[in-house]
């Protein structure tokens, strides 16, 4: 039985549709990430599930029961916001046991749950510290312990790592996932960070303008994006605009306005249609010499940007146009700015989409 089910959920603020007739099922114990740009409706969706915001129409079911009439505290869903909102005058222990005490639990039970939660987040030793004496990571763990001590079955995380340093985030996102798994919680995690989403999720839903535009495992979202937007938002992609000329077996042929031909992956679209084709920069190959006749283009390296594990290259093609390639460190060392190079697209990595109705530029907008 699905833990959470959402049916035709809709929320408007005046003329603005924040969540647009949304259907969603979250399985028991699943770690689901809601990924999308600012203003996509991610936080609103989370607040509707928690009961902190009331929907305009539609229903939220938890364990098969409609929870519309239930206040937030009776939905057994712990909500953790980006700012943690710990009580500043209470120590770690008091913050953690606030919920159970307010619920009138007997003191023995309060002590057991408080200790259990704080040991889990490695804060039991610091139970006498006040929030301002804690580091950012510790405050986050304290807030998590508080959220969990309320006997929740569902964990709703609204950008839980946003307030932390970039490097610390890398370590803590894994800890968060491990905690949720150990406690067998059903988790919905909201983020705008595509790398975070890829690394922690059982499943990702990509939200844009209040609608789900794709749902799938991290691998599916990365390798089989439903739309150019997803292709470019999760990872980064180069795009070609052209017409689908012909189809042959597993391959398709595309011709762009300049008359260049490309061999791309299989597509259910009809020959003759206007299409866009895109390839991830991580799968865009770069070599010094020419390699074959298919999908091979000459250019000059305009920019080289070192990123550590990867290096990003910007290549200006001799026939016009700019292509980005992301190469692993060991390979990247062989190239420098000004080098004459060849760019290659593996046909199976060049994915075809129908031409977006509002144009490619609008489709790819992140804000």
């Amino acid at each position, binding site marked *: 039985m699905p833990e959470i089910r959402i049916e035709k959920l809709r929320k408007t603020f005046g003329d603005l549709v924040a969540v647009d007739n949304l259907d969603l099922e979250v399985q028991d114990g699943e770690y689901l990430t809601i990924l999308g740009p600012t203003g996509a409706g991610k936080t609103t969706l989370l607040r509707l599930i928690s009961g902190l915001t009331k929907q305009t129409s539609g229903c939220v079911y938890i364990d098969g029961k409609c929870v519309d009439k239930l206040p937030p505290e009776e939905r057994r869903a712990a909500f953790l916001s980006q700012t943690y909102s710990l009580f500043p005058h209470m120590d770690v222990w008091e913050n953690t046991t606030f919920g159970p005490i307010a619920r009138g639990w007997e003191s023995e039970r309060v002590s057991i749950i408080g200790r259990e939660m704080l040991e889990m987040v490695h804060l039991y030793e610091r139970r006498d510290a006040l929030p301002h004496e804690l580091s950012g990571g510790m405050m986050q763990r304290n807030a998590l312990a508080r959220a969990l001590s309320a006997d929740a079955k569902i964990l709703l995380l609204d950008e839980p790592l946003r307030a932390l340093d970039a490097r*610390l985030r890398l370590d803590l996102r894994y800890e968060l996932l491990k905690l949720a798994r150990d406690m067998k919680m059903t988790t919905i995690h909201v983020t705008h960070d595509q790398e975070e989403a890829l690394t922690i999720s059982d499943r990702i839903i990509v939200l844009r303008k209040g609608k789900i535009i794709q749902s799938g495992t991290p691998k599916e979202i990365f390798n089989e994006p439903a739309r150019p937007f997803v292709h470019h938002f999760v990872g980064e992609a180069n795009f070609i605009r052209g017409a689908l000329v012909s189809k042959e077996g597993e391959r398709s042929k595309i011709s762009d306005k300049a008359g260049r031909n490309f061999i791309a992956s299989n597509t259910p679209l009809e020959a003759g249609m206007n299409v866009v084709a895109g390839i991830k920069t991580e799968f865009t190959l770069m070599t010094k010499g020419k390699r074959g006749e298919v999908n091979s283009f000459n250019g000059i390296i305009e920019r080289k940007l*070192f990123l550590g594990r990867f290096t*990003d290259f910007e290549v200006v093609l001799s026939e016009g146009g700019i292509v980005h390639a992301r190469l692993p460190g060991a390979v990247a060392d062989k190239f420098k700015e000004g080098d004459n190079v060849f760019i290659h697209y593996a046909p199976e990595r060049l994915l075809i989409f129908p031409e977006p109705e509002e144009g490619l530029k609008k489709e790819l907008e992140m804000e």
Partner: protein
Amino acid sequence: MPAIELNGITKRFGKVTAAEDVNLKIESGEYLTILGPSGCGKTTLVKILAGIWAPTEGDVFIDGKKVTGIPTFERDLGYIFQNMAIFPHMTVWQNANYGPKVKDWDKKKGEQLTTETLKLVHLMERKDFLPHELSGGEKQKVGIARALCSGSKLLILDEPLSALDARVRLDLRYEIKRLVKRRGLTAIHVTHDQEEAMSISDRIVLMRAGRIVEINTPENLYNHPQHLFTANFIGEASFIEGGIIKNGEDCTLEARHKHHIKIRNPDGCFDVGDGVVIAVRPENLYLSKDKKENSLEGRIEDKIFMGSFIRYRIMLSTDDLVLVEIPEAIDKSFNTGETVNVIFKPEKLLVYPLPREGLREVLSLE
């Protein structure tokens, strides 16, 4: 194009020392980033440089002139921070052109500069928009454009991208760098984001607890970090502690449970009996089903899809957890729970003396 020198800068707030004896020279036309975890003193340092705070000790020189004590508005610098306040009732154009206008520059010259700057940040098409009609990233760009139109040759950027979405940040950081280089400005950029720092800087100053840990180019900091903290903070790394049991050509370290790893000891800096720590990047470890030369057994704890590569978390027979990243194209697809051999290539291992205060303390990010 100003050159800057910080000479013995110390700043104390009561008992807290935010910066301690910091010495730093910034070349004219350089893009320098000050990087470090929260509370490392990076913002304190640029505030002293800008004249917003006075140092407790030490002096600031701009172009060889001592400016300690001179107020901010006389230092001729542009200051960009996280949420740039722009005038809500003024259009993009009016906001950007504010500096030239109030400074009563030649109208034509001012307008030329503003046009050029707005083109550089790709906002010329939106020059008649009001701030509330813009996205967060665009608003921040207007703020940056306004700072650039002030005509200052020195630009201070204090976490200019932190309030923006991850994906928007990527695009904007390249634009800022391009702009600074094209204008020939000297830029000092403060951030806690190591990837941002690597992608934009000529040099990075890595700080921790009020002190400079290391200054170098992004490539050198990533590939040849001089300190353990750097190896962990810039990029990720796994660490294995051990003692040297054999020296010379076959320099060997003994890790926990008597497992051996061959390392390099090119300058003979280590002697038999020395305690050392190996640091290794996830992309510099390799996996094999069978035992290979210089490999150790481990159990796959977790397997994570990361796009073009797969990340494994592996518990070694030495009880050390290591991260291993394999490009997806050549990944043999090992499964969680499986036993594999992790191959160590001596030339890819960074080796450091075992720190006296303990490894955990040295690596701590907070």
